[in-house]
């Protein structure tokens, strides 16, 4: 015989449909987010890993001012590497200001992956990066003019050495709108003017099992060979340090844990919602439980009976959430990655680990929390249930309250009676409003970040030279990269040294120290690395294996990167370079320098454009987060305040019998919930802001800069407003419910 109590499940579901539908939907959306996101992430990660191996991504590259002689090439190949020409022609002003690198044919290394069409053949065909094509609305078959040559688009591709579009490795974020990459055949490449061509050489180690350290050592040997042969090496980057290659594989793993933690926290909150609801049901059914227990039902049987429904609902939600997450949500989540990154075509893979994370773990959380509560409740003797005395610790006296007005004392009693629900509500509000804060606060924060860079950056143009040439109107600067330890990751981060003129007109926000070994650091440097005036910092030159210990004299207001400023003469001395060595100009006007001498040219919008990119890549996620957090607000507020009414419906009925008016009942019960909601919203704000700050420190640890915490008051106001409006709607529902509580409930009651 099946347990006749099982028949209650369906009836209970029907009776409390609102309750179960709400928790079900909240769980489904949570799981959809989790499974969709994790599935796409894991699949993309897998595709990317395969792609980097299959399509032979380089281990490093360097750029020379002129093509290498064969003699040097063969000397380099003695280092057990394969060397490839990876030349590119730079088109500066495509489509009004977009920089495009057009690479020559690639067959041995950095092989393109094809999305659509075919690889370029013949003189006039070009394959463009898929993301670049999407952003500039380029279709297969269109014609493009780049550096005065007309091409027909033969296909869309992705390049393994440009999975993230970083124009400069110094950039903080990618630049998917202002920068793009293409590939032409060798024949087509021959048509470009020499002045537009950069001679990049990429290499791969024949030994695929080298450690990072061995790769760095090999790179240093290669560099020494190049320098030893009198070559001016412009840019030397191993894959690990090359953001265009390494950013995405590093970044991909990193948002996973944040998402997981978010999912688990939400599941825990929903589990507590269920627990609060079960606790209420048990109180309501205390006499039935006492009867069943006295007739011989075992504790375990009743625990099972009361846990079944939450678990069944959870299970169904997990099934539905995963099913939707793995099907319809693939596209939107794919967009998040494919809108920002140049990934190869995605093969969606069922991932066991992701599946466990979005099914097994949530259901275990659900079972554990509900089981703990129920076992705890059911451990009371049947006798206690009969007397409805379900408090664990005996409450001898009612808590003593100060001599407030009756109505306030009453409200405090309601709060005390419902402290469990209100506590869960508090955490629910905390989490939902934190999500909302993140959703609506990120844009002003990024704007602020871009604005402060814009406000503080002291020059308009930066010209990095291939060879030192004289030019009028600019200031000579020696730019050099060193590394220093970042306390948070214990890893080295790259910092940029600027050797500037002692009487600089441009860098005039601070006093350039005259003493040797004294430096000024930028604001972002000081904040990210937690450095104060007077500190001594160790910098490391990993190329020449040297260490320098320098003293911070001052902190200057620049926020564009981790910059260190010192007198150019002192920097030359420090790096053992000849006095007067420089490699760049900064200026307020574009300088008249022959393009052939310029390695990299950047203007103000280049400095800023990169930072603005973050918003573009976050756009989709933000919309999802905002919708989700408002939904979570509604559901949690509805369920947890409704329980207050459910618990008190008998007393509300009594109140009506006594002659209380609707308005007065509202004041006693509903307004109490409103006050708790409002207080929770307000108290949570500073807590959320702190959490946001901590997350920013984490985000900053991923980028080569520092994002300052900034939220305008309007964000806080919006959060509270959304919360209040959400509650306002729910309150209207509750009012209707209170109105429907019949008076005969009180009159018919026998206990």
């Amino acid at each position, binding site marked *: *015989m099946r347990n006749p109590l099982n028949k209650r499940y369906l009836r209970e579901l029907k009776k409390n449909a609102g309750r179960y539908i709400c928790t079900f939907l909240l769980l489904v959306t949570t799981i959809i987010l989790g499974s969709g996101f994790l599935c796409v992430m894991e699949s993309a990660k897998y595709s990317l890993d395969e792609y980097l191996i299959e399509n032979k991504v380089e281990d490093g590259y360097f750029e020379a001012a002129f093509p290498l002689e064969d003699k040097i090439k063969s000397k380099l190949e003695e280092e057990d590497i394969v060397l490839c020409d990876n030349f590119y022609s730079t088109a500066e002003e495509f489509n009004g200001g977009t920089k495009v690198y057009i690479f020559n044919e690639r067959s041995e290394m950095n092989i393109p992956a094809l999305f659509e069409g075919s690889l370029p053949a013949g003189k006039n065909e070009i394959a463009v990066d898929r993301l670049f094509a999407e952003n500039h609305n380029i279709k297969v078959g269109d014609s493009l003019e780049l550096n005065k040559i007309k091409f027909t688009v033969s296909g869309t591709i992705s390049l393994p050495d440009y999975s993230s579009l970083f124009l400069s490795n110094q950039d903080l974020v990618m630049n998917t709108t202002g920068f793009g990459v293409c590939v032409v055949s060798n024949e087509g490449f021959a048509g470009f003017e020499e002045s537009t061509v950069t001679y990049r050489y990429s290499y791969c180690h024949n030994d695929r099992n080298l450690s990072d350290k061995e790769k760095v050592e090999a790179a240093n040997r290669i560099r020494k060979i190049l320098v030893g042969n009198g070559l001016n090496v412009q840019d030397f980057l191993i894959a690990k340090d090359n953001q265009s290659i390494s950013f995405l594989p590093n970044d991909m793993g990193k948002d996973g844990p944040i998402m997981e933690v978010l999912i688990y926290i939400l599941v825990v909150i929903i589990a507590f919602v269920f627990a609060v609801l079960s606790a209420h049901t048990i109180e309501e059914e205390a006499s*039935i439980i006492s009867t069943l227990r006295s007739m011989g039902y075992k504790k375990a049987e009743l625990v099972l009976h009361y846990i079944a429904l939450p678990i069944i609902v959870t299970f169904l939600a997990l099934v539905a959430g995963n099913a939707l997450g793995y099907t319809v949500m693939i596209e939107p989540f794919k967009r998040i990655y494919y809108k920002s990154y140049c990934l190869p075509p995605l093969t969606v893979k069922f991932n066991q680990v992701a599946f466990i994370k979005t099914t097994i773990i949530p259901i275990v959380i659900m079972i554990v929390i509900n089981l703990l509560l129920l076992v705890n409740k059911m451990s009371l003797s049947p006798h206690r249930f009969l007397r409805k005395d379900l408090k664990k610790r005996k409450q001898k006296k009612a808590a003593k309250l100060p001599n407030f007005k009756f109505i306030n004392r009453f409200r405090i009693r309601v709060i005390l009676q419902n402290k469990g629900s209100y506590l869960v509500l508090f955490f629910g509000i905390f989490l939902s409003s934190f999500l909302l804060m993140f959703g609506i606060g990120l844009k002003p924060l990024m704007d602020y970040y871009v604005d402060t860079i814009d406000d503080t950056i002291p020059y308009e143009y930066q010209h990095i030279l291939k060879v030192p040439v004289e030019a009028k109107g600019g200031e000579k600067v020696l730019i050099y990269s060193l590394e220093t330890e970042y306390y948070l990751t214990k890893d080295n981060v790259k910092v940029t040294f600027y050797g500037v003129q002692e009487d600089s007109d441009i860098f005039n926000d601070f006093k350039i120290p005259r003493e040797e070994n004294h430096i000024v650091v930028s604001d972002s440097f000081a904040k990210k690395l937690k450095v104060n005036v007077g500190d001594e910092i160790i910098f490391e030159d990993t190329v020449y294996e040297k260490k320098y210990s320098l003293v911070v004299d001052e902190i200057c207001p620049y926020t564009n990167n981790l910059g260190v400023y010192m007198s150019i003469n002192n920097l030359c001395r420090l790096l053992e370079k000849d006095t007067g060595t420089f490699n760049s100009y900064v200026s307020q006007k574009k300088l008249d320098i022959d393009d052939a001498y310029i390695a990299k040219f950047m203007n103000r919008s280049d400095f800023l454009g990169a930072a603005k990119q973050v918003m573009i890549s976050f756009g989709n996620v933000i919309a999802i987060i905002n919708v989700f957090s408002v939904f979570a607000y509604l559901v949690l507020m509805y369920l947890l305040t409704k329980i207050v009414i459910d618990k008190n419906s008998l007393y509300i009925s009594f109140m009506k019998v006594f002659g209380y008016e609707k308005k007065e009942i509202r004041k006693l019960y509903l307004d109490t919930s409103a006050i708790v909601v409002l207080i929770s919203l307000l108290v949570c704000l500073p807590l959320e802001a702190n959490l946001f700050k901590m997350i920013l420190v984490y985000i900053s640890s991923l980028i080569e800069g520092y994002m300052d915490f900034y939220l305008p008051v309007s964000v806080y106001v919006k959060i509270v407003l959304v919360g209040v409006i959400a509650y306002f709607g729910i309150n209207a529902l509750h009012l209707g419910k209170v109105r429907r509580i019949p008076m005969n409930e009180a009159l018919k009651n026998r206990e």
Partner: protein
Amino acid sequence: MNEKELTQYRRNHLGFVFQFYNLVPNLTLKENIEVCAYLSKNPLEIDELLKTLGLYEHKDKLPSQLSGGQQQRCAIGRALVKNPSVLLCDEPTGALDYQTSKEILSLIEEINKKYSNTIIIVTHNDAIKNIANHVLRMREGVIVSDYVNENPIPAGLLEW
């Protein structure tokens, strides 16, 4: 006996009837009885029991659709269905009117005869003692008299 053994003892030997019927509100009468039939290896035939209780035509109704007396009959049926050796009745008529109380007492009497189990009734109604075979009178937790009733009166003849 420890907790577990106590539960097992209740499961195998005891039936309870309370002053308030404590029926499961979203189960029908028949299902409410089945809840306890489930606990027993050889429960009584439910339809027959329902007929004995005079509830057969109400078997598919929910408790809220029934009168107090009918609900109490159901509660007794629920306690009996496992065919317990001891039936404990705590003020079984406490919430019922005169007529209904007498009907319930007659039912208990009938059941006692039919199933020959031990029935212990706790009551404040002095008249009810007359239907019992053995009477223990208690005051403030102490037994003040203890006698065997040689001539129990049929419940239908009780007056109070």
